[in-house]
């Protein structure tokens, strides 16, 4: 069962950006469904941005 729906067929490489300018204008939703601009998180100080693979 080497195929998992949605899994990549070939190994990919991660592509860390050189800076966060491409991220700053994107939006995420808070748990009430409200849009929040990503760049607002680090406007006033450092932000540790964690992208979860799954919950738990």
């Amino acid at each position, binding site marked *: *069962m*080497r*195929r*998992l*729906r*949605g*899994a*990549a*067929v*070939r*190994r*990919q*490489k*991660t*592509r*860390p*950006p*050189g*800076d*966060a*300018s*491409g*991220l*700053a204008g*994107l939006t*995420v*939703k*808070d*748990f*009430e*469904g409200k849009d*929040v601009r*990503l*760049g607002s*998180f*680090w*406007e*006033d*100080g*450092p*932000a*540790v*941005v*964690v*992208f*979860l*693979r*799954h*919950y*738990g």
Partner: protein
Amino acid sequence: MQLHRDRDKFAAAGARLVVIGQGTPEQAAHFRESLKLDFPIYVDQRREVYEAAGAKIATFDELLGPKMVARGGAVAAKLGVFQGKTVGHPAQLGGVLVVLPGDDIAYSHLSDDASDNPPNSEVLAAVKAVAPS
């Protein structure tokens, strides 16, 4: 959840903790309530942020290979937290960025497989290295 346990350390170092998951706001709210987390969880339903951050899609082996199962099981047993139902893309991997005002990235770790997560101590050290004294 290890982030929750160390949230005060990140705050003391002057960093804001921003946790982003997949799925819907309702699923994020449920996760937050079930684990009694007191920091907000945001969702990137279209995975645009994951894409822009350079996070990758895993192969089967990178998700469920022996190393991943062994490491994941050990961590879950130690913390008493087990993976819930997968929401969003089942093979989307994550990562961590430390971003500064001006959009500079002081630290990045994008997961290469499902067990590849940086220890909080490493991320915290990166924050402290750039925090104003």
